[in-house]
């Protein structure tokens, strides 16, 4: 168990709130199913953020419970198959704005501590 834990990259320990934000942001492009969301985040970060399904699905269900996304089984375009598509709600859109600004503040605050010279110049 402990040996496995070492293998997991540190960067994967995403803060829960951050994952929620990333999912919401991804859904801004349009409805997507779980696999697409995970793949999208992974691709956009050049595989820096390896999506763990173990946290993706709980996160999706949590967002749905809070009313920030809705879900529906729909035919995928070009495939003869149904997927569970998640769609951003109006409430989710607002939440994204809130989380984004919080994250920005946080990042700036961290940056100010880490690179004080850059701030002064």
């Amino acid at each position, binding site marked *: 168990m402990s040996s496995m834990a070492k293998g997991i990259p540190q960067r994967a320990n995403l803060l829960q709130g951050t994952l929620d934000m990333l999912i919401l942001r991804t859904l801004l492009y349009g409805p997507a*199913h*779980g*696999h697409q969301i995970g793949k999208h985040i992974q691709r956009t970060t050049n595989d820096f953020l390896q999506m*763990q*399904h*173990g*946290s993706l*699905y*709980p996160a999706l*269900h*949590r967002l749905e*419970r809070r009313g920030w996304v809705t879900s529906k*089984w729909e035919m995928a375009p070009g495939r003869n*198959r*149904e*997927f*569970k598509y998640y769609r951003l709600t109006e409430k989710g859109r607002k939440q994204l704005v809130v989380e984004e600004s919080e994250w920005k503040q946080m990042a700036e605050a961290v940056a100010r501590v880490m690179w004080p010279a850059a701030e002064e110049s």
Partner: protein
Amino acid sequence: MRWWRITKRNADLERELRSDLELEEEEQRERGLSSEEARYAALRAFGNPTLIREETHATWSWRWLESFACDLKYGFRGMRRNVGSTVFAILIVGLGVGGASTVFSVVNALLLRPLPFRDPGQLVWISNGETYSTQAEHFSDLREQNHSFADLAGWSGTYNTGNQELTGSGEPERFTSVPVTENFFTLLGVEPAIGRSFTKDECQGKYGAPPAMVLSNSFWRRRFASDPNVVGRKLTLNNQPVTVVGVLPASFDFASVFSPGTPIDMFIPWPLTDKTKPQGNTMAIVGRLKPGVTDQSAQAELAVLAKQLETQHPERNGIKPRLVPLEQHVSGQMRPALVVLMWAVGVVMLIVCANLSHLQLARIGTRQREMAMRAALGAGRFRLLRQVLTESVALSCCGAVLGLLVAVVGPRELAHLHAFSLPLLESVRVDEKTLAFTVLATVATGVLFGLAPALQVPSYTLREGLQVAGPAASGSRRYGWFRDALVVSEFGLACLLLVGAALLIQSFLRALDVNLGFEPERAAALRIDPSFQIPTAAQANAFIDDVLQRARAVPGITTVGISDILPLDGDRSWQVGAKGQVYDKNNHPDAFIRVVTDGYFEALGIALKSGREFTPSDRESSDPVVVVNETLARTLWPGQDAVGKMVSQDGGRRVVGVVADVHHGGPERLSGAEMYLPMRQTGDYSAMTLVVRTTLPPDSLAASIRTALRPIDPNLPVTKFQTLQGLVDRVMSPRRFLVLLLSGFAGFALLLASLGIYALISYSVNQRTKEIGIRMAMGASSWLVQQNVLTRTLRLALAGVILGTLCSFALSKSIESLLFGIAPTDPAVISGVILLLCSVALVAGYIPARRASRIDPMRALRTE
């Protein structure tokens, strides 16, 4: 959340995961992997599907339910492992909760539930100063002139048991009837179940000779086997034809509200227009306030009206209307007793909790390693706490099943105890309120006793928990003070209860010890009113002579007398005075009137203080005489010998004797003034009760007396002998009720406290086995070890007892009103309780102390 929604969600999640997994697999295949490799790669990328499922579950709100069920299952498994302590816990929770619920159901019936009438909040009881009843004339005037009441109604406060003889329907039998005013049932809002109430016409006749009657439900069921056709039937009551016009509903129990302990069989109309209505204060009054009228304003109006009436009618008795809400009148007297009982139950429950807390602590102690392991595996602090609490609540719920049984059976038994003449006792039953209370008490108990042990759980840190070896060392000496505090509080609470119970037992004994002024043992009474009219006084005298002579001849009977009213069973009072003396109208002496024959004093064992008793020659033709009791003699002729003096009664009667005072309001009431008239010289009595003193059990006599009296009255109805002891018991019953319940609780508390201290001491002896072993190896004698343990026991017990005594001093005011002849801080009682508790503690401590002194040092040292 409904289970089918859960199932639906599960299926949905399953489908989602599967479809995404397949997609992943597809993508892997597109990269050129073989289909099998692709599946493995997909699974690897996906992670553990079970874990995903579980974590997703966790975001759904019913996770707590799952873990609750899990805790519950675990808790039950734990209980099965520890059968002994589980049974013990269930037993004491059951008894505690059962007792609490029983008391609650009594409290509910007497104090919480509204009276079984329409809008009972508007009903008030109107007494006349200290006395129960008012003159009927005053009632009529008050009713007409007031503006505060929607209506006033009344019933005869002077009826007595067995005043009606019913013939023409089976065996002749004696029943109890109450005359009520026409509007009585309407005012209370009671509709007859069958038939109707009285009409105006039926209330025009003569008092005591009713043309119609209404039956009580219980009488109708018993005597007429619930026959609905009885309404409209003509029966013969005291040789007068009377029509049954209605049957009251079962919900209306006159007796349980207004005359606890005396069942009422029928109601007859009280004609208010009748000019021959009974003299004196005879009417008990209830009123219904107009909406919006307060008790105070109604009281003020009545006071003004009463003043006017007294000036307008100087010939009438005085009137001082006093108004209390009916509810308060009915159950107000029981309130302090019930409040004490509720507190007692609360205290018992606290002791139960302390005991269980202790038990649970020991259990958790042995599971320390398990808890530490769970914490190490990631169980949160709150999660562990919740599990321990779930277990204790589950335990107390098991106990509650037993408690529920007690709670259902207890009130039912209580309700049927006619031995207790408490108001509304028959309506004591288990209703939804009681059940809610039981559930609440159970959960509260579980949480309370589980809380303390549960709060200690998180402090078992991983390292300590896993390191400490075995259950023997599991006690966590850190919590020693907490265990000690539990035992000390148990002793304190038990001490408080015991002091209360001991005080009430003492009061009960003292009330029993009161010299009632007569000797109830071996005295019995039987109604013998003739079933025919006796036209002349001479014939009445002959009848009395005949009865006394025949009854005296019955074997086993030593003395015989006749009276109209028995002690403790109804009263009638008149104004009396010394002849020639003028009294202030507001301060006129009055006395209870008894009409008796010769032999009465001897039969009841009432002591003659001076002068002589009545004799058979005190009859209509001889000088009018009277016998007074000591109080009346003192009131009318202070400092003088009453014998030979004249009272103003009937134009002047000579006092021939003075007898001892009789407490006829019960042992705890002072005896008032009494005047005895010879039955042979007056017709002013409404009942004839044969009083006998016997050497045989009274029950066996009834038949032979009846046989002896049959020749003079062939229609003599079948009635049971009423023992005077029975009357005394009835008066004492509220106190006995309280003493019984409270002693039960106190005994239970004592048992629990002694078990608690025993458990603690024997636990600490187990803990200290090694230490004791070392001490003994170093040369400590077994006596010293024993002494050591006993000292500790005694110290804990004393600490508790001192606390309890201080509490009982502090609370002494609250119990004072319930005590009789004893102070709430009676030193003998308190020192007795202290002694009892200390000796119980010593016995409980002696067993482990002995075990400690037997410890083999070598073995003790080796085993650790």
